[in-house]
């Protein structure tokens, strides 16, 4: 079975989704989904182990040799991503049962789990595959289920947010499709490795340039990179809380993965960063994104909106690291990918707990909550500290690497801007602290969140601190992945 791990990674949640539909009791469906996700997580741990010790795994679907059939190609980069996605999914699912009880009508719970698993499948599929067109297919699985999940939010704004996301997402996916088509036309192949071998021959052609542009714009739409981020805040704010926790930690990460995969592996470093002024462009967009989104976050009155904008800002940091295009820069991006997933899922899960007890997440409703739900609010504050990049949290580690990478290149001004950006994070996190701890509570007393929330939230918070202190594992993996991208491509 070990040889089949790559495909099992995707097939387990995929097959579980239709089975869920046949189970009668929602309790059972929840347990089953949790088990499935856990199993996928176990597979991803094994895969990462295998990749770290023995290198690249290639798996030929249907037994057909690579450029003719579809190939799964697991290297350090995607093994790392698979681990993040399936891990977060599992932890978030722990709290799902309790959380959706109050947010989604009872008769739709089964659909929620089916869609959740499908969305997980889609993301895992995008990351695991080594075939450009297969990326498109799984991208659509994850997007369609995402639209439906977001629309399940209880306010009517959720519908509108989901519609906007659907339009933007489909345009993005179609752009990617056009890009893939152009690449295919010039090379005659869809396999990523094969593409990377054959593209250099035609790299000077205008068609390949257009292909590159379309793929990158399409991915950036999915990525919510400034200025293509407009769909994200509403989608995150109005989706059911559990869905937000899951997506905030994983969905944009998958898009960043695609960006890295296409620029570094498929088109190749020399094409992406020398032929085209990608570096300056992304650096600028990343920095503007950090500032615009952080400022926007400061003025939000809905906390989910606030953290959604903060997510866009954090994407900016990842993009800056990516645009440095050095091993350290990429390591910083990958670390931040991992770390941001930990912080944001903790924060949004804690917000889910607030929604469960309070009913909404308007800043005003949080008054005095620091005393009434001490554990939940402490988690939000710790997550916030991590967002700022306070030492001993994971946020510090990735910012540190990012700064080192910038200083290595001698880009002091950019490093200064990054630090300034972190100050903005202090501002928005402080607003929450102020309201929650220094204002008198209003309304009826509120109880602490139930254990089904506290356990996963604190598991994530502890991970936040643990990986902030003991950086050996995460840094080692991220560094190895970054190095492998700079070494032989793919």
């Amino acid at each position, binding site marked *: 079975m070990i040889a089949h791990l790559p495909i099992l990674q995707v097939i387990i949640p995929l097959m579980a989704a239709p089975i869920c539909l046949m189970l009668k009791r929602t309790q059972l469906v929840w347990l089953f989904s949790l088990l499935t996700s856990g199993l996928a997580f176990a597979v991803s741990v094994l895969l990462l182990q295998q990749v770290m010790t023995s290198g690249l795994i290639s798996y030929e679907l249907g037994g057909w040799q690579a450029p003719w059939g579809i190939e799964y190609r697991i290297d350090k980069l995607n093994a790392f991503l698979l681990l993040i996605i399936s891990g977060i999914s599992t932890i978030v699912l722990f709290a799902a049962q309790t959380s959706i009880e109050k947010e989604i009508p009872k008769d739709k719970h089964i659909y929620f789990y089916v869609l959740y698993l*499908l969305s997980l499948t889609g993301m895992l599929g995008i990351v695991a595959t080594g075939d450009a067109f297969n990326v498109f297919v799984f991208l659509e699985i994850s997007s369609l289920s995402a639209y439906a999940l977001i629309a399940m939010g209880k306010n009517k704004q959720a519908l509108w947010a989901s519609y906007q996301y659907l339009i933007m997402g489909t345009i993005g996916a179609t752009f990617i499709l056009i890009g893939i088509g152009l690449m295919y036309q010039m090379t005659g192949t869809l396999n990523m490795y094969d593409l990377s071998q054959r593209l250099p021959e035609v790299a000077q052609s205008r068609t390949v340039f257009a292909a590159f542009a379309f793929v990158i714009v399409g991915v950036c739409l999915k990525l919510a990179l400034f200025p293509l981020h407009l769909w994200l805040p509403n989608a995150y704010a109005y989706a059911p809380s559990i869905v937000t926790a899951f997506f905030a930690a994983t969905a944009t990460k998958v898009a960043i993965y695609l960006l890295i995969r296409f620029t570094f592996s498929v088109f190749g470093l020399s094409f992406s960063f020398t032929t085209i002024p990608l570096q300056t462009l992304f650096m600028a967009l990343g920095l503007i994104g950090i500032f615009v989104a952080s400022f926007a976050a400061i003025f939000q009155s809905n906390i989910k909106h606030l953290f959604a904008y903060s997510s866009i800002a954090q994407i900016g940091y990842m993009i800056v690291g990516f645009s440095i295009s050095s091993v350290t820069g990429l390591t910083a991006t990958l670390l931040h990918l991992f770390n941001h997933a930990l912080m944001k899922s903790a924060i949004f899960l804690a917000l889910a707990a607030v929604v469960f007890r309070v009913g909404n997440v308007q800043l005003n409703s949080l008054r005095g909550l620091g005393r009434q739900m001490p554990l939940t609010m402490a988690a939000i504050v710790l997550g916030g500290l991590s967002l700022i990049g306070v030492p001993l949290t994971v946020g510090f580690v990735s910012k540190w690497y990012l700064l080192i990478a910038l200083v290595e290149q001698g880009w002091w001004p950019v490093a200064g801007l990054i630090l300034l950006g972190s100050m903005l994070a202090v501002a928005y996190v402080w607003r929450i602290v102020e309201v929650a701890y220094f204002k008198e509570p209003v309304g009826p007393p509120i109880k602490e969140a139930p254990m089904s929330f506290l356990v996963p939230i604190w598991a994530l918070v502890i991970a936040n601190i643990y990986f902030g202190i003991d950086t050996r594992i995460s840094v080692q993996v991220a560094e190895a992945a970054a190095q492998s991208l700079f070494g032989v491509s793919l």
Partner: protein
Amino acid sequence: MVVVAIAIIRMKDLFAVVMLAGIYGLLSASFFVAMDAVDVAFTEAAVGAGISTLLMLVVITMTGRDEKATRHKPLSALLIVTVTGGLLIYGTLDMPYFGSADAPIHNHISPRYINDSMQEIGVPNIVTSVLASYRAFDTFGEVVVIFTAGIGVLAMLSVGRRKEDDEEIASINDSMHEQHLVIRIVAKMLIPFIFLFALYVQFHGDFGPGGGFQAGVIFAAAIILYTMLFGLSTARKVINQTFIRLIAAIGVLLYGCVGIVSLANGGNFFDYNVLASDAIAGQHLGILLIEWGVGCTVAAVMIIIFFNFAGRRELYQHNKHSQNKESS
């Protein structure tokens, strides 16, 4: 086609727009025939001109058919469109010319499909062998996409209905449908033939255009025809919602199980060669089974989608009906 597209931009009447979109689908289908893509043409005709037009019409009956005159940001839209279009035109400049046989796509991967698929798979329709065997996993993904859409529609539109409502709706429907007695009888005679045709398409995919997807759509079309003429509640009595949901799930599972069995037999996922003692026989068996999986899921999901749209529409009319009663 350019004319149709521009007409769609100008039109304000949504009904006409949807009809034109249907025509656009049909035109592109005929273009696909001219381009030798018969399988694609078949599907596009069924989907672009058929299912999607139908769904849009159902929605228009609920939302009203007029578009508001306000058109905002046409300038910025024009800008974006010009930039993207310009980029594409720029990209075409280095493309291999249309129809030229020495383009890279005809010389790298596809020769193997064309030359060897007969020995490796033993199916004359190359599209089927690529779809169902070489790139079986893409097709699996496609089935999952359609399954996702079905579940998504269910999650959004399914309504818990009360019995008495049901009966009232049924009575409204009956009065509506009684006038079409002749059409009903003709349709009743037609429907078995449509089923038969669907089965033919299902099995014929190996030799000519066709296969699970098209068969599924045709099968669903027959059910939809029945529903339109006999009313939703009658159709619901014949086909139960839970049952159809089950079929959709079973289709996906059937497809996946073919892969899992090949794993168990020692091959890679979707390696049909290990399904039977002889590789060609294994390929045949594998393709047959997955085509059935595709057919099941597609038919079931199409029916689910249509039922739920139509169900919402009935509810909508029902509410309107009772509102009118109250106000008068």
